[in-house]
């Protein structure tokens, strides 16, 4: 999450917005955001429907798996990576996606 916060100026440059989603409740997320000085939205999804939708809800576990997803402005999922974010790979993808958008 800290890495996303450091990259906000680059996401903005590439016309991207970042959202974090977890199964934690809102109060927990507020403390989490405050502790890490995060300014982007963290979404609480305690019922886990997003985890099910994105297929990262391990059965019987109260947390999501880690997955980074990029959705383009048409609502199409363009990028999916599991595990810790590869920020360089992600930034290169967002740059390319933004260039594609500028050409259309």
């Amino acid at each position: 999450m800290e890495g996303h916060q450091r990259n906000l100026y680059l996401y903005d440059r590439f016309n991207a917005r970042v959202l974090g989603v977890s199964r934690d409740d809102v109060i927990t997320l507020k403390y989490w955001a405050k502790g890490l000085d995060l300014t982007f939205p963290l979404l609480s999804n305690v019922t886990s429907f997003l985890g099910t939708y994105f297929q990262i809800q391990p059965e019987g576990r109260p947390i999501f798996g880690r997955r980074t997803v990029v959705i383009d402005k048409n609502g199409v999922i363009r990028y999916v990576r599991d595990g810790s974010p590869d920020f360089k790979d992600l930034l290169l993808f967002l740059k390319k996606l933004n260039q594609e958008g500028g050409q259309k």
Partner: protein
Amino acid sequence: MNRNILISLSGILVLVWLSGCATTQQTGPKPYKMSAQGMVVWEDEYEFAPPPLEWKLLVPEEGGDISFGFMRSDPGGFPSTSVFAYDEEPFGCSPGFEGREKEFFKRFLFNAIVKFEILGKENVKVVGGEGIAVTVEGKDPVKKEKVKAKVVFGKRGERVVGWYVTQWRPMEGAYDLSAFEAFDKFWKSFTFLKKSFYETL
């Protein structure tokens, strides 16, 4: 708004688990070479004066907290050790030094659970630009250990980078300033040989 949306889904507890480790073991090709002027050229990206011979190279395992550094075992009882390092992504997010310093010390040596007292802060020149150097001391009265550290924040492009030295001692032990002298030589000699990845975007 015509913006792409990036969603990061995570189990937040996992993030804490991901803090990295470092090792002095070396496998594969060396990440550095020596220049004709006797400087260390690290992965063709950084150049700096080599530390004295007693310092062992310290490289992070994947996902580590530092880019690379050097470690020295000091005489005296546990935990007498000195480490200095360069960190391309120091803890925190702020692009300014003041904000970054506050964020950094929330997480620095997090596992040790020591409360830091700031011993000194000064403006410095580092890698050709402005920076700040902060000297702190932390004590753990339960384990009867203490640590003295100096952290230098500088800029690489738009992003804050850091150099730091830590020296652990038993509570009654004396600090060895030669480690801090070696560290000062390290960061003062440091140069970037090319633009960072982020500067090329």
